[in-house]
């Protein structure tokens, strides 16, 4: 039962590492950004999980309900999602500029051109 209760934390760790792997191992800049988004999404999962209370409902005051989930992590993660979107958007913007200037979005080809 305890292991099952932790399943979301395991998911967090696995998704985090998948994203991290893509960032490090993929030479394509777009794939790196996809990895970065997955990496950040894992952290969203961590925060949402910690706010959930077993059997709790939305924190709206009503009769007959006494267990509420913690809304604060969700609010925090809304902000973090906005940050993540801005980062991805800016990253994609930079990739577009790189493509314009270098004609490639493969890391080694760009390095090759800079070496000349």
């Amino acid at each position, binding site marked *: 039962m305890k292991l099952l209760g932790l399943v979301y934390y395991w998911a967090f760790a696995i998704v985090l590492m998948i994203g*991290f792997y893509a960032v490090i191992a993929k030479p394509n800049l777009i794939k790196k950004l996809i990895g970065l988004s997955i990496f950040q999404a894992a952290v969203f999962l961590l925060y949402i999980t910690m706010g959930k209370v077993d059997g709790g409902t939305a924190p709206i005051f009503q009769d007959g309900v006494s267990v509420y989930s913690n809304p604060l992590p969700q609010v925090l993660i809304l902000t973090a999602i906005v940050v993540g979107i801005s980062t991805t958007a800016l990253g994609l913007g930079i990739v577009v500029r790189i493509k314009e200037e*270098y004609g490639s979005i493969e890391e080694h080809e760009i390095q090759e051109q800079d070496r000349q």
Partner: protein
Amino acid sequence: MTDLSHHLPALQVIVPMLSAPLVMLLKPRGLARAAATAASLFAFAIAIAMTMGVLDGSTYTYRMGGWPAPYGIELGVDRFSALLLLIVTGASTFALLAGRRSVDADIDESRQPLFYAAWLLALAGLLGIPVAADAFNIFVFMEISSLASYVIIAGGSDRRALPAVFKYLIMGTIGATFYLIGVGLIYLMTGTLNLADMELRIHEVGDQKPILVAAGFITIGLALKAAVFPLHVWLPNAYTYAPNAVTVFLAACSTKVSLYLLLRFDFFVFQGNLAGHDVQFTYFLMPLAVLAILIASGVALFEQNIKRLLAYSSIAQIGYILLGASFVTVAGLTASTVHFFNHALAKGALFLAVSCLATSCVGLRLSDLGGVAKRMPWTAAAFVVAGFSLIGIPGTAGFISKWYLITAALEQGSLGIALVAVLVISSLMAVVYIWRIVEAIYFAEPSSDLSAVGEAPFMMLAVTWAAVLANLYFGLAPDVPVTLATSAAETLLEHLP
């Protein structure tokens, strides 16, 4: 009047942040720059006012919306954060005052309002980190400053800035996300985000393992942002290919804000709570600091581009700051915090001199700079004096931090002797790499026709010399930074068990 001074911590962030959208709308020539400079000057004045306010030992606390902490969001300024605010606003103001020619050369006039708006957002974010007393707000400010910095670094005309900034974006985001994971784990265990409240509640946590993991995530994440060796790979290219004015601004302050946060977290939140954290902190960071000092200085010895050379020297200087902190003593932390200030002065002045050189030289490689001192005597002299400060010649600001650092190292017994040797060797390396530039600009044969080369614009030279004279002034009368640094060190160590 008293009422207004109470609001200073909030104004410190709000002034540049709200000026940014206004600046963006100012299309006519030069207005955007003037408005951005005015906002930055105003922020500088606020930082000076708050430094005066905290010099007697008091602190500012500000509750957003009047909600009491830990439920509401709290802002706080003590002597350590005041020192950082002074560095950040000072660097921004100096860079903007001197930056006209550099920005005009690098950025189309139609895009300049956007550039200055991004600059102010970077400023607001960098100021928000020292002011905020809440871990999640710090994350948001960190991302504001990073995103805006990526924009202004990539804003120039050099295409090599783009891959550099992409690397910075990837590594910066990983660093910030690691920080966020750490904060999340602490929140999971304590249910609070307020730093002061966190420190109290970690005591109550039964199982310390998640806190230990959080400490690891936060330390590594911030070390990435602060370009601690070997996580520094994003820094040299980002500094080298950024527009010169941006390099002056960011090289003087951006990594220091992350280092500030690293020290704040490790000492303020973790040190008193995690058994053996001080020992782990020392043995983890001291080797990295020594490697940073030796390897980065070594790379600087062979670098041809002078911006890149100075960027590697910055990595070495980050090593000095960490080395002082890794002693976990009052003397060590004083040395390290005073070096925040003195390195900002020296590196700021050096990069200002570099942007003066860039106004009329064909390039910034050593071979491009042969003999320019004859044509640009004031710039060359400024470079030499600022270089003395970086090396740590007595009478300059750099000497003060080297002195404190060596004193602190000698307290460490036999290990200290070895560290002093490291410091002396690295200072000698600094002599060599600064000399390489001085040799090129004074004694080398001109490689190209110098008849077109003239002295930099007056305003730029005036600001550069103001920075150089500040190096001399704070080398002879270091009371203010030393007072701030000593008390910052004492505050940080109060939390040791």
